[in-house]
């Protein structure tokens, strides 16, 4: 496999998807703030989307399915970002912080 020919192999995309997922997962566990967690979640979604697109390109019989799925994920992500923004702001208004440790009394 030539290094310049990577773009024509399914594995490349799967690996990068896995990396994005892994990095996102790590971030989700390790990040402290709501915004940081949201960013990590977006990375996980991006990893999933890359996989969808890759399968769509190489193995799917109908090459529109993956694209539509990715578009759907995008819409979800956009909605998620909007909601998250308002949650973050609401939390900030009430607790004056977005540190999840400080917001722990949200539980009860």
């Amino acid at each position, binding site marked *: 496999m030539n290094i*310049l020919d990577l773009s024509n192999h399914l594995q490349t995309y799967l690996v990068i998807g896995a990396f994005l997922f892994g990095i996102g997962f790590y971030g989700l566990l390790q990040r402290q703030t709501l915004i940081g967690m949201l*960013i990590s979640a977006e990375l996980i979604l991006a990893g999933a989307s890359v996989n969808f697109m890759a399968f769509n390109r190489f193995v799917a*019989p109908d090459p529109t399915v993956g694209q539509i799925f990715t578009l759907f994920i995008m819409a979800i992500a956009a909605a998620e970002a909007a909601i998250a923004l308002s949650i973050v*702001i609401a939390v900030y208004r009430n607790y004056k912080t977005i540190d999840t440790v400080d917001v722990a009394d949200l539980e009860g």
Partner: protein
Amino acid sequence: MNPPITSADGLAGIVFLVMLLVTGAGAMIAVNAERTIRAVAGLALCFVGVAGIYYFLQSPFVALMEMLIYVGAVCVVLVFAVMLAEPHPEQQVSKRNALVGGLSFITAGMLTWGLVALAKGATWSTAAVRMNEGTMRDVGLSLLTTYSMVFELVSVVLLVAIIGSLVLGRAGRSKA
């Protein structure tokens, strides 16, 4: 297939490598940056890379939508969140202790390793016949015919999101 570096394909290969690099670097910044604003910038960088990868997957439409929605909207919204909720760039949030960091790193590393091994090991059967070319027109057609449910769902999700964020934003303002 082994394109020479000076040919058009070779050039495309280099660009692809750059895109991979950008994606990886962006993701790393997004997760590891000390300042939230840099994390968002890293996320934007990562999404630009992902958009490039989509372009190589022969779907320019999705690639451009990725740019438009993620970089132009989601990241901007995130920066807004940072601006509104974090007026002290100097003040850092407490770090989670090293044990959690190490554990999460190990967990995530194992997950990634497993997935990569899975991807490498498996053999993928290519579809014998492709129904269409997957161009923009095809995407549009199937979005309005076969997968019209997705279309409707997206609109419902967006509507709910709009109403939800309005309600949340409103509630915060009520004291003023």
